[in-house]
């Protein structure tokens, strides 16, 4: 799903400086039964209104003869707006090497652009085909804590037929994905990573967050933590 380019040269990061084209990311999973408790916790931590999340994500891949290497691009359609809005997103390689190993979040190249509604037609015309698509349904919080951080909690759903959003079913019933992301630049990525990392510690009782593709499973004591949050509406410190 992600382009895994080689990207461990720090000097290259500075070329991207003017484009603010990186992000810090962690992910985790949580049982659906504990999502309400997580929402209460997030509401208390973030201090902002939660936003509904309903995003149709289409992953397109270049055809066999296009480009010297194959490439992928994601089209995101926000279905929660009165009029669906589209974004094109390119996710590049993650930082590697000793520097990256010392950071507990993934730092990777990422560029996105809002686009008008013809994006799918255009990329199809350019030789990109649909590889897979998902529907993410849940909620998100967007707030500032040293960095601009976004936390989303969503069920990931697959479609039995192409673009059949209304027939989407969960990929992992009973489990939801927690994503924490923050945009970064080559100049500030370590600060942003530290902000994300520090924020994630508050969520530890309910969900363990780590670099994507390095799954650590659910938190075994989440049930107790959730019960505590639900019993007093989140007023008790964990």
């Amino acid at each position, binding site marked *: 799903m992600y382009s895994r380019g080689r990207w461990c040269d720090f000097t290259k990061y500075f070329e991207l400086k003017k484009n603010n084209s990186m992000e810090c990311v962690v992910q985790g999973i949580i049982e659906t039964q504990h999502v309400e408790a997580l929402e209460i916790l997030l509401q208390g931590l973030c201090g902002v209104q939660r936003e509904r999340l309903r995003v149709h994500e289409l992953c397109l891949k*270049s055809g066999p*003869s*296009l480009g010297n290497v194959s490439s992928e691009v994601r089209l995101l359609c926000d279905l929660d707006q009165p009029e669906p809005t589209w974004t*094109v997103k390119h996710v590049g390689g993650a930082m590697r090497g000793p520097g990256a190993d010392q950071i507990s979040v993934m730092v990777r*190249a990422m560029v996105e652009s809002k686009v008008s509604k013809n994006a799918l*037609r255009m990329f199809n015309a350019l*030789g990109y085909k649909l590889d897979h698509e998902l529907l993410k349904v849940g909620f998100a919080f967007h707030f500032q804590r040293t960095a601009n951080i976004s936390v989303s909690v969503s069920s990931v759903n697959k479609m039995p037929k192409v673009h059949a959003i209304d027939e989407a079913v969960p990929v992992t019933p009973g489990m939801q994905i927690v994503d924490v992301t923050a945009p970064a630049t080559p100049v500030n990525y370590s600060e942003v990573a530290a902000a994300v990392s520090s924020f994630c510690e508050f969520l530890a009782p309910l969900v363990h967050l780590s670099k994507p593709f390095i799954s650590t499973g659910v938190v075994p004591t989440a049930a107790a933590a959730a019960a505590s949050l639900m019993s007093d509406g989140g007023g008790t410190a964990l």
Partner: protein
Amino acid sequence: MPVKWVLHWQPNQGSTVSSQILNEATQCVESINGVKEGRWKATLNYYKPLLRDQTNQAEFPRDFLGISLADQPNKYYFIIRSQRIVLEADSSIQLIMERLQSYKSKVALYFEGFQYQLGDFRLRVGKVVPTHSENVRGIVMEVEYLPISSMEKSRKVMEEFLEIWHEALSKRSLPGKFVNIDLNFGEFGLGDNYTPQHTAVRYALVMAHMIATVQAVRG
């Protein structure tokens, strides 16, 4: 957004476009009391696919172009005219295209010149030059009618203005004329209310005509 027509200079058979014609056109605007406001610039890129196997070239569009418009500094527009596709994006889409490494800009052109206010009209006259050359490949003229954003409602006043313009320019006995191309915006999914996407499509069409003119001269 105000309605805009984009005209291009069509030289007479046997003559070519030059900076001299641009100077004459600019002077003509000033002679009908156009007030110079400053410079303007737009950039156009022709993209070609990078292919592992050249025999598949026909599968990919030959007229994929991108344009940044003077009015919209944070936006970028893609057009595939043959398939009637136009897309508006943030400027960051150019970085995405670079990172995909599937298409590369092979030809880049600037449209640049001066901008004038003339009553309720804004005019931009400019030359078309490759980015690393001063060789004038064409001349364009934007005519914008500021009070109206409906193309249908503005048609009459635009046509009347162009009559005045043609008459003023004809006194200079230049070897050619400015031409406006009508097109069916509905085919591109665009409506009567004018938008920057309309301008992007107009520029794509102007380029197609300019290329056809050059090819006809060479032929």
